[in-house]
């Protein structure tokens, strides 16, 4: 660990606390790992200037106490408040490579998709793809991030906390008398979510029965007549007016009973973000599906 020579008492104490907390497993550098693009990457030292190009990675870094290492984030990183003040580095399809290089980062976290990894690597910048996609990966990638930024203990704590919060909700929903069927629309093409996607897992844990079978894949394009036939009790992700206007949908149960809705502002973001606020998303979703359990 690097220590500032002009350290105030406060800072020394803080450093000491961190040092104690991570006593169990302080990362030793150089650290070599295989990232989500299947590349072997070596970190020479603990990264001090990090650019995160994934909103979920930005959130996780902040949640494990590495927020002050961030020097830039992608356009869609909007949580916590702190990251919104950081320089914006573009999106998945239009990253601002020059701006990223200009920040002189010693680590850039990227998605599996998009193509910036190669050009950044050629520019001599360490790039690691950390891209949680499934429910379990949300936890495992949090631990990976903890290892990368030398916050393993914090990452373990975060994971434990998340699992505990999720379990609290699950205890309620697991024993619900009736589990309503639900259709969740990712976009109006329409694409939906399969039960093995992380959103699908959350939907199930919220006490709903997803009408999409696992055999259709994680993010399947759905034939509208399939949805009508399944006639779910909840239609989530489409506002009632749009849903009712679709051919043949006006007579569906969810629409007649007022249970077709766009997700409330905020929930639509966190529900689709595989990050530390997953328990929060689950709680809110569970309240929509089982309001009787949260009185």
């Amino acid at each position: 660990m690097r220590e500032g020579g002009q350290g105030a008492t406060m800072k020394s104490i803080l450093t000491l606390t961190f040092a104690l907390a991570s006593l169990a497993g302080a990362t030793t550098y150089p650290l070599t790992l295989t990232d989500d693009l299947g590349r072997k990457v070596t970190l020479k030292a603990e990264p001090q200037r990090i650019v995160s190009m994934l909103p979920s990675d930005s959130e996780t870094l902040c949640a494990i106490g590495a927020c002050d290492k961030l020097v830039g984030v992608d356009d869609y990183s909007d949580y916590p408040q702190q990251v919104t003040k950081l320089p914006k580095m573009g999106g998945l399809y239009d990253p601002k490579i020059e701006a990223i290089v200009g920040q002189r980062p010693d680590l850039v976290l990227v998605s599996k998709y998009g193509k910036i990894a190669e050009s950044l690597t050629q520019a001599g910048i360490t790039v690691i793809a950390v891209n949680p996609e499934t429910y379990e990966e949300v936890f495992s990638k949090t631990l990976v991030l903890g290892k990368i930024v030398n916050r393993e203990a914090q990452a373990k704590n975060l994971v434990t906390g998340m699992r505990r919060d999720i379990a609290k909700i699950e205890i309620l929903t697991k024993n619900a008398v009736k589990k309503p069927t639900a259709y969740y629309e990712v976009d109006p093409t329409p694409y939906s979510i399969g039960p093995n996607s992380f959103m699908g897992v959350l939907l199930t844990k919220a006490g709903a029965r997803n009408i999409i079978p696992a055999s259709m894949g994680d993010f399947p394009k759905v034939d509208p007549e399939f949805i009508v036939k399944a006639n779910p009790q909840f239609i989530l992700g489409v506002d009632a007016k749009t849903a009712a206007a679709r051919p043949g949908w006006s007579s569906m149960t969810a629409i007649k009973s007022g249970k077709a809705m766009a997700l409330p502002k905020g929930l639509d973001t966190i529900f689709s973000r595989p990050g530390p606020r997953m328990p929060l998303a689950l709680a809110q979703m569970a309240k929509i599906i089982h309001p009787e359990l949260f009185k």
Partner: protein
Amino acid sequence: MRSDAQQSEALTAAPVARSRWVWPRTFLLLLLLLSAIVFGTGLGSVNIAPEDVLGALWRGLASQFTGAELISNDVIVWQIRLPRVVMGVLVGASLSVCGGAFQGVFRNPLADPYLLGVASGSALGATLAIVLDWPRALIPVSALVLALLSVAVTLSLAREGRRFPPTRLILAGVVVGSVLSAATTALILRGEDRARQVLAYTLGDLGFSGWRDVLTVLPYAALGCGVLLLLARALDTLQLGDLTARSLGVPVERLRLIVVIAASVATAGAVAYVGIIGFIGLIVPHMVRLAFGASHRILLPLSALLGGALLVYADLLARTSPLSQVGIVTTLLGGPFFLWLLRREKEI
């Protein structure tokens, strides 16, 4: 042969030396279209027994008069599948007739309905509407306006005095098309969260085609194709060359202008809700020409039949297989077929 049958088509004004094969083959195409409608309505991702499909059609029809509410499978058959099939027929027929007319009016076998920037204009209009989250009803309007606008730009670029030479028209269309496509891509990148929906649109999808969409598209298809069918004889004459056609009394530039506008109306209508479906408009006229001859009075109506049938079958394949979108199916099947056609033409 030339007597009673002749009277009935008096207004088409000249005999096509019909081989005795034309009528049986036309009948075959009608059967193909009919079978497409039957299978398209009967099959889908939800299994419904044939007798239930028939019952659903009957109850659906009856509900138009009684106002009775449909339930379950009846809804699927009457409100989802049937309009989707009808939309498929309308779009397939429109694209094929426009393709045939464009190939004729530019005497270019590679012409398709999307020539002159019609498709890229429509796509930009629709993308605009989707990204700006306008109501669904405004998507086709926006698509149409931009399609006609881009055709107007193409025409003014290609204009040479009072004439529109085909080569200049096609080149201008390519230029306008690529500029508009770039604009569409820029828009897609701006509205990333809707990117997939826009992408789905540019690949062509019959997904949510309801009766309301069908009724919106119908006037465009009817007007556009109707005008083109009426111009069949003039298009035939144009095949002799611009000068010869003019010497025979056909106002060639006027004909070209009317065909372009009529085809743009029909194409933009077809593209508006359904997106850009590739190859149908290019290939169907070639298939008909191969089997039935090149006279536009046969080519255009039979292209409508075959195009309608093929698109419904392609959509059926799309929604019951992982290919998932009708535009993907037509392009996957159409590309190789077109190559085969090119090789074949060379051999003749």
